[in-house]
């Protein structure tokens, strides 16, 4: 599997570590209920097919990426940088 890092270009999956599904935002501690936390920390959509997930390019630029990948074909639709640099790197499909 090759993950198209927007900064480094396509790299072997071995350079990356899988984070977690990217669908859910971390709840706001100020307002969130125990259920919200339980849902964020323990529960997963785990779809068969299109999946948006976090990957970390730990053996490369060390950016966190949001990768859209099919969990059956493993085909990657695209990857974008997560965080403050997102705007300046764009995405790679």
């Amino acid at each position, binding site marked *: *599997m090759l993950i198209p890092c927007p900064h480094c270009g396509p790299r072997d999956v071995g350079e990356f570590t899988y984070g977690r599904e990217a669908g859910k935002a971390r*709840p706001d*501690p100020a307002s969130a209920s*125990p259920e919200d936390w339980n849902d964020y920390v323990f529960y997963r959509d785990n779809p068969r097919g299109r999946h948006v997930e976090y990957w970390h390019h730990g053996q490369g630029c*060390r950016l966190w990426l949001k990768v859209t990948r099919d969990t059956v074909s493993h085909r990657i639709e695209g990857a974008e940088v997560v*965080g403050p640099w997102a705007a300046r790197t764009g995405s790679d499909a």
Partner: protein
Amino acid sequence: MSGYRLPQSGLGVGQAIDRGKPLSFTFDGKRYQGFAGDTLASALLASGVDLFGRSFKYHRPRGLISAGVEEPNALVTLRSGARAEPNTRATVVELFDGLEAVSQNRWPSLGFDVMAVNGLAGPILSAGFYYKTFMGPTRKAWMFYEHFIRKAAGLGAGTTLADPDRYEEMNAFCDVLVVGAGAAGLMAALAAARSGARVILADEQAAPGGALRGDAVASDLLAELAALENVTLLPRTTVYGYYDDNTLGAVERVADHLAVPSEGQPRERHWTIRARRVVLATGAIERPIVFGDNDKPGVMLADAGRIYVQHYGVAPGEQVALFTNNDGAYRSVAALSAAGAKVTAIIDARRTIGAQAQAIAQASGAELLLGHAVTRALGGQRISGIAVAPFDPARGASDTARQIAADCLLVSGGWTPTLHLASQAGGAARWDDTLTAFLPGAPTQPWRAAGACNGALGTAAALAEGARAGTEAAESCGLAAPAVTLPKIADEPLADAPLPVWDARPPHGKGKAFVDLQHDVTASDVSLAHREGFRSVEHLKRYTTLGMATDQGKTSNVIGLALMARERQLSIPEVGTTRFRPPYTPVSLGALAGQARGGHFRPTRRTPMHDWHIANGAEMIEAGLWLRPRIYAQGSETVEQAYVREARQVRESVGMVDVSTLGKIDVQGPDAAEFLNRVYSNGFLKLPEGKARYGLMLREDGFLWDDGTTWRLSDTQFLMTTTTANAAPVLTQLEFLLAAVWPELKVAVTSVTEQWAGMAVSGPKSRAVLAAALSDIDVSNEALPFMGVRKGSLDGMPVLVARLSFSGELAYEVYCGAHHGEAVWTRLLAAGKPFGMIPYGVEALGTLRIEKGHVAGPELDGRTTAADLGLGGMVSSKKTFIGSSMLDREGLTDPRRLKLVGLVSADGGKIRAGAHLVAADDKGQPPKSLGHVTSTTYSPALEKYIALGLLEDGPQRIGEKLVATYPLKNIDVAVEVVSSHFFDPDGSRMHV
């Protein structure tokens, strides 16, 4: 005597061998001669050897079936000693001088094998018989039978010696990878290369060419390719697996054709090939036809016969017969006649055949029997003749057979395209009724198939398809591919539609009829599987083990499917194929491992003072990938004697320990303090510059994760330290939080673990040592108070000094540039000499921290909370932080949770880590565990064995007597529960 070497008679006989280079080798200890270019199989065949091995279950005598990778029978153990290679196909072993091979799975000898009696028990040893018996008399009965079954099973014997050879890997990138260098592959590679594309052409055989190997057409194409610098030719390279994103795995046999690899040369090289486009030109494998005793030595695939003649100049027999259902097989007859080998009879199941086949038959002078079939092979340990009967497509063969003498029977039941890679990266295979074969399904990755593997069996067709595939592949890479002109070829037997004949046995046919030769799966086993309901092809495979042998059913699977289809009265495509999996042919584990082996399995991390530790007698110990000094043993000291001496010296005077392995993270930016305050469970906003603070990190689920001190170097810069084990995960987590959770924070985090060497100087005399060593830092209590951090230098080398104590003594951590680590370390030791300063290892480090009740790895086991470890006070209730929101779930606040306590040995016995704590009066068998011992040591300070433990109602039990039980060694030690702060509880010693 059957096979023999043909005299040199012009082209088309023995093109692959060099008769000028004789080689000598042994098989089962007997010495033979062959020629350079021979395979082990061709050389043995030329020497008249026909018995190559014994089958898996019935131990039937077996000979050569093929001349290639599909060989199910001729498996030998190649080489000897540490280089012994069991289950090696003689058909793909390139002969070298001094080669040693022995046959397998027979006792006492290949000629006479006692286990052949299994053959008589045939009906009992039917498919899956073992599931129905060996169940009694006792429950353990199976263990008894299994012992013998294991001995009987297996093929060759593996070696117990370490492989002396090396393996390597290579990463390759290309526009077009062409797999297979036959007519189609050569043409595809050339067409693609002409566009300037970066092309890799891999072929598993000793020389490229495939079915055209040795032919002028192939050599011309090859010469042209070899001249192009944008083409990489990989002979002896098997592409075995097709992985995601057009990543393919291949193994190049760099030195397998030599007795031993030369200096520096790997035996095999694993290629990870990342191709933009792939052309699969993997050819086709001939399949046999089932009849009685079709496994007798002397029965061989027709194209193999051609190859032995044309490549190796070996006639497979003196009286050769052919049994076919298609025209293509007549080229074998042509090849034999051309070489002067005698073909006595041609048995063709069809009533009419092509004109060219007709002509070849006539020219050969063989008796031509149309509308006939071979119903049984006759003879003892090898065939001496065949039974031939009239054959009708509808009704099959009749029982009335006539006999024809033959010492070799060539069989062709048609061709099976080599779909392995296509299927690994594609949809279900398509059935083609005319070819009676499965063809590649729809690609799920960017490849195209060409040639025989795509059903284009003729050379002309293969060349044309190859050219098209190569051009298209280049064009889809955005390159302009100039048209290529196809080489002219002599006309050939058209690869016409074979007559579907799978099982030629007459109604009352005799003899075992084999489908899977290696696993001894017979046609009646297929029927039995059907009868018992194992009708899905995947059930058929698993119940009978059809296609599960080392050849993965290359010559047998389709026949098995056809027979099951017949039983189920379905068409073959309705029955379907079993799933293709990597590797296409077996791949050595060494090649897959490459250089990552033995001491290099994973890299080793060494601290800046590593060489010094070794030079000074340290015993090193693994900590993650790091090596750390465990103890510096003196003379014949035991581990315990050494760490007790080291720890005592620290408490009495001063010692120094290497702490370079701690994770260190540079945290900088306007929001650095705010960031840390959200990450740690305790407050960091108000940490003053020049001060350090011990911090706790929780997981989101509220459990303890990591701890360490973090130093505020400036308003906006912190140096965070983590445990050795969590250095990488913590940095990754910080990066995640800054990217995904708090992108608004202006903070940069960078690992500086490798930048800093760290050493902890501990003991009452530590201040004096630093005072002596450091000129520009005032280390007095006032100038450098507890938890204070100062910058300075030592002999011009910049250092950071922090007054921290893990040991509970007056202590400092000195950090310096890693390249200076050894210099600073030795300078400090020199300064400490007057005070008897010693280096100490992680064992003494442990002793000192346990005496203080400080927690470490064994307590931070991922299941404990801050409160469990008495660190509840460090969990702020005034702020939110990672983990704060899930802290107060019932499971984390349950009063019955195990809590940290101290334990002292009540009877002087040694407390062992991993012991469990039980009530002294618990007479239960077994008793109930109330908790367990996490860390233990002999305490020089208390002069007894002490330990930390996690205990139900821990704090309430202080003063109670318990037993630390260790059932694994039947050791019980009486312990008393005490506070975990064994030594100097008020910390007066570090505040001086």
